[in-house]
């Protein structure tokens, strides 16, 4: 991936931002941005709408949280194992989900995510309705204390950049080209001899693992893993973030996550807090009816029209 001026400018903003804004808030945006980027890998580049990505976010969070509380691991190992657990669940779920297409794929992923929701609701280790509270952040590599919010932010930024890089690397690899071919014309990809279901499956696994990475990191930032992260609302939120930012664009999910998280933070403090779901539903409807390209997509169209 070649670094453009835009990349460098954004990186500079990300490095300076915690001195202006609250680091935990920024870390939250980055976690959700990674989650949305992982989701976008499936929807934007393979054309698969997963309506159950909360399952992987939650799994990453629960496993990492449990390990931090009970196994005395360093955070990077706990996160790695949480990510692996989400990837494994993704491997299982992906294998099942790619058997169906289109709308059925969305329903299968939603139902599978609900299955894991009930498992976590009943499993003793998750703390049920209360969730896991007071997860320690620990010391990175046994050296760097993450309890400081600013240090934590830079660690999250590093994790995000890794995930972002990996997704871009995937999209621009020969593997990613096949994914795009499947999105554009699946029967043709089949006739060219590609085993389409295997490609979808691997993409699903990568996406699930990265969603798990986002959840694992998030559980350390907030020192909390709860059922909210596995609820279908969360699966809907990541769809919304991606849709608002721009499906199938590189920076769209990042922008969308920033917009939605900022909006939620802003609303939950004020008297409009009760309206949050109504507003999110309305944004869904408006986006689908009028702005299917999302913020980035519409911006690109505008630029192309005026300068292209």
């Amino acid at each position, binding site marked *: 991936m070649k670094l453009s001026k835009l990349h460098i400018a954004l990186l500079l903003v990300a490095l300076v931002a915690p001195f202006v804004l609250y680091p935990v808030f920024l870390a939250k945006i980055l976690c959700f941005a990674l989650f949305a980027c992982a989701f976008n890998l499936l929807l934007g580049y393979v054309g698969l709408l997963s309506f159950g990505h909360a399952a992987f976010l939650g799994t990453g969070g629960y496993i990492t949280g449990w390990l931090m509380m009970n196994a005395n691991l360093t955070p990077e190992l706990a996160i790695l194992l949480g990510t692996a657990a989400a990837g494994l669940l993704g491997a299982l779920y992906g294998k099942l989900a790619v*058997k169906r297409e289109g709308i*059925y794929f969305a329903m*299968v992923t939603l*139902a599978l995510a609900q*299955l894991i929701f*009930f498992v976590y609701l009943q499993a003793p280790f998750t703390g049920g309705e209360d969730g896991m509270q007071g997860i320690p952040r620990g010391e990175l590599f046994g050296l760097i204390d993450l309890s400081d919010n600013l240090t934590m932010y830079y660690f999250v930024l590093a994790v995000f950049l890794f995930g972002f890089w990996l997704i871009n690397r995937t999209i621009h690899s020969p593997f990613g080209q096949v994914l795009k071919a499947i999105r554009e014309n699946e029967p043709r990809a089949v006739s060219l001899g590609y085993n389409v279901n295997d490609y979808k499956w691997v993409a699903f696994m990568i996406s699930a693992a990265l969603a798990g990475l986002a959840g694992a990191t998030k559980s350390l930032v907030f020192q909390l893993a709860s059922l909210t992260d596995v609820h279908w609302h969360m699966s809907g939120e990541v*769809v919304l973030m991606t849709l608002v930012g721009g499906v199938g664009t590189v920076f769209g999910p990042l922008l969308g996550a920033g917009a939605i998280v900022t909006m939620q933070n802003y609303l939950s403090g004020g008297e409009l807090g009760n309206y949050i779901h*109504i507003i999110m*539903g309305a944004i869904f409807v408006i986006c689908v009816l009028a702005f*299917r390209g999302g913020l980035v997509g519409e911006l690109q169209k505008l630029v192309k029209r005026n300068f292209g």
Partner: protein
Amino acid sequence: MTFLGINLFGLFGQLLVGLINGSFYALLSLGLAIIFGLLKIINFAQGAMYMLGAFFAWMALSYFGMNYWVALVVVPLVVGFIGILMERFLVRPIAHEDHLYSLLLTFGVALMLQGIFTHVYGSSGLAYAIPEELKGGTRLPFMYLPNYRAWIIVASLVVCGLTWWLVEKTKLGAYLRAGTENPQLMQAFGINVPLIVTLTFGFGVALAGFAGVMAAPVYSVSPEMGSNLLIVVFAIVVIGGMGSIGGAILTGLAMGVIEGLTKYLYPEASTTVIFLVMVIVLLLKPSGLFGKEA
């Protein structure tokens, strides 16, 4: 009463609960299947429409004193009309786009409706009294059968049966089935396809509204009643496949019974058993039990 060490009261009690849940599954998946057949979209707001049905019945009784029997006729019509408006002004403008967009659109509508009712009525749930005529119950040799529960099963079977007859045996149903096969050709024969599409959407949604009214006296009327149910119905639709009307009804009832049986045998798994059945079906027959194509 026990037989071979089995608590028959407990078993039949849970089977009855399962059959009632199955009646609601059948009504909702039937509505989804009818809409899917013609429009090729999944109405994510189907659960919200069910919730609307229950709330409208409650509101009609509390604000206008409209009794259950009137509500049972009027509320589905009102909910169906809302569905017609939704099809006309929200779904149709994006009908030519990828069908995933209509899923997202109806998901947004569901979020909004659920949000509005949570805002106005809170999330704790409201009670709706069982109508006077159906209070009490019958004592059978092996179980106690509350009249209202028996009514739910009979009424939803009748409605499901009528719908099946309407779609499979009447001229209107023939149009519907022809539209499912080839809408362009049907349009060329001078049949008003957009009108049929709108009415079909309205009818599918009205079924959910009807289920909502029926559910009001047995479940608490709450904004979340629809979304939780709908996800289970999605799994049922995957299990049955949406290719056949009869298949949707049968799968819905069967899954309710399986759920009830699990509640008796191994209560811990009762919330997950339908999803597990879905996993097994995906492994053995990915296109669904009654499905034609993958």
